[in-house]
């Protein structure tokens, strides 16, 4: 089995297919949670529970030729963009069949065919590089768009400000998407950042900016479409703040006991997967019985997938030396 087999790019905007993909992400994250808790997987992991709609909406709008630079919290984006659960799960398990051959891990996913560039585990790391891809597209005269997805906490790092300014002054075809899930590690946003509406930071770079409801797939799709169209047509960068909420702890060991009481409960009805389901039912595109069936079969699919990954081979020792430098060209 090769890492990229059966890629499933979500180019269509079929809402039932989107819901199914959201269920996949949800179930995938739940499985990961269990596997880490059981000690089956080592290292660390960052779940995207509550942030599924942003991933799905992003995938629905972008083309595989638009490079996405995301973070250590990208299982959802990877699956939404079309990576197979096997290639992501195997990577998290450190297996040879993973998207990075088991050398990257949970924080480092990549699939160039789908437009997912290596995700960075350094805060702000992807922003300047996304701008640089936009620079290349501008010079090449094509209509591709560079995309950076990052957290609220990343707006406090130098790279963020430098990159916004640079992208604005060069009018680069880039879309900056801040996933404001209210927390950076164990700190609520108000403890580290004087404002909670982060999109206004782009105002000082004279960059178009707005907030979207990151829990609402339709709002996400509309908001990202507008920015991507602007970038494609030479209108320069846009800064989007997606208001979401981090339903899980920061990383695997975190119980998130620092949340103000009731905050999580307040957000639960805004669960993006739940909202998708409710909307489909309301529109008559789905009934609750079918929805339940989809959920339980997704559970089976993901559980089986985990078994397949567990049985997959470990990388061989020489793998660690394979991709450091350009291979020597033999005459």
């Amino acid at each position, binding site marked *: 089995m090769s890492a990229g087999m059966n890629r499933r790019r979500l180019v269509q905007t079929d809402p039932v297919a989107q819901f199914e993909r959201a269920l996949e992400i949800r179930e995938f994250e739940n499985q990961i949670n269990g596997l880490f808790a059981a000690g089956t997987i*080592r*290292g*660390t992991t960052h779940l995207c529970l509550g942030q599924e709609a942003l991933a799905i909406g992003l995938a629905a709008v972008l083309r595989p030729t638009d490079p996405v630079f995301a973070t250590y919290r990208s299982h959802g984006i990877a699956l939404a963009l079309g990576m197979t659960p096997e290639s992501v799960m195997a990577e998290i398990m*450190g*297996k040879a069949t993973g998207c*990075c051959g*088991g*050398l*990257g*891990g*949970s*924080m*480092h996913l990549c699939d160039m065919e789908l437009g997912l560039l290596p995700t*960075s*585990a*350094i*805060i*702000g790391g992807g922003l300047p590089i996304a701008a640089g891809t936009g620079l290349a597209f501008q010079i090449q005269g094509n209509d591709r768009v560079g995309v950076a997805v990052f957290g609220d*906490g*990343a707006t*406090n*790092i*130098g*790279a963020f400000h430098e990159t916004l300014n640079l992208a604005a002054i060069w009018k680069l075809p880039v879309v900056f998407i801040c996933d404001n899930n209210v927390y*950076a*590690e*164990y*700190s609520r946003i108000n*403890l*580290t*950042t004087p404002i909670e509406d982060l999109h206004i930071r782009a105002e000082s770079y004279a960059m178009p900016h707005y907030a979207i409801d990151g829990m609402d797939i339709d709002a996400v799709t509309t908001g990202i479409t507008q920015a991507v169209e602007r970038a494609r047509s030479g209108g320069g960068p846009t800064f989007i703040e997606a208001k979401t909420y981090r339903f899980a702890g920061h990383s695997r060991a975190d119980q998130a006991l*620092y949340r103000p009481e009731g905050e999580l409960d307040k957000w639960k009805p805004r669960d993006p997967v739940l909202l998708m389901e409710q909307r489909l039912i309301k529109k008559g595109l789905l009934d609750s019985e079918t929805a339940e069936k989809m959920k339980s079969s997704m559970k089976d699919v993901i559980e089986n997938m985990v078994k397949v990954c567990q049985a997959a081979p*470990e*990388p061989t*020792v*020489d*793998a*660690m*030396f394979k991709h*450091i430098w350009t291979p020597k060209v033999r005459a």
Partner: protein
Amino acid sequence: MPAMRLRQAIATAIADEMRSDPTVITFGEDIAAAEGPFKTTEGILEEFGPLRVRDTPISEMGFTGAAVGAAIMGMKPVIEIMFMEFLGVALDQLVTEAAKMRYLSNGTLSVPIVVRASVGGGLGFGSQHSQTLENWVAATPGLKVVSPSDAQSAYSLLRAAIQDPDPVMFLEPRVAYAERGEVDTNLKMELGKARIVKPGKDLTIVALGQMVNVARAAAAKISADVEVIDLCTIVPWDKQCVLGSVKKTGRLVVVEEQPESGGWGSEIIAAVVAEQFATLKAAPFRITSPNAPVPYNGGLESKFLPSPEEVTRQIEEVMKTGKAPQPWWRREGVN
């Protein structure tokens, strides 16, 4: 003597310094309310309050520079860089600003900061969160570079680092945070002084950080009588201790966690060879990681890091042949 975990020794040293010196302050990401991602600042906010103990935004450049500014105005900041890699976004403030302050003020300014960072592999954190990277800072005159290996040295060296008038980079082996050891809070250790953690007469191992435990484990298995030196400080390193030991044993092996190229071990071997070549009975050499990023996969990561088995194998070989053995990756022909 109380036994404590290495991470508690860190917290205890910070607390003891803060108690005895009101100019000591500490800040970093999630070090106050959450008491540190690795719990190295447990109880500090509670005892010393939010004026002296602060959580920062994710702004390493900003808060590293703020430490420099506060230091030249009379404070003694101890800051935490959660993973050494994050120093990358703040390197200017340490290497190009802090390290030049005294020099560019014609000797009038002092920058008594301690930059603490967790370092090293072994925990499955992948290529961007597992490096030791001491060579990022070791080649900058004006910085001192220190790394403890156990609870006692963490406690005593951190206190010395905080008391030191110059900028100190303090590298904490992450994998050892939970390890327990006895700590004598009256024991003083000086920066720039190594410790002989196991005496021996046949061969000298110089190690640092988590490699000290690896060297000790190997020394316990090796048939020869090995002396293990915990270097403790890379800049300035304890030449006297190392030269003295090698004069006695005639054999030197440096065990470094970082990749083969550009390590401080080369510096040590160069000095020994240059200054007392005639005392050597065998070729001095280094045992390091290979020139590759730290792999995530568990099996590969343990193969990647110098292990007691690999150290044992190479030392048994040099004892027999007098020649520097091949590292595993050349022996196995994989690199």
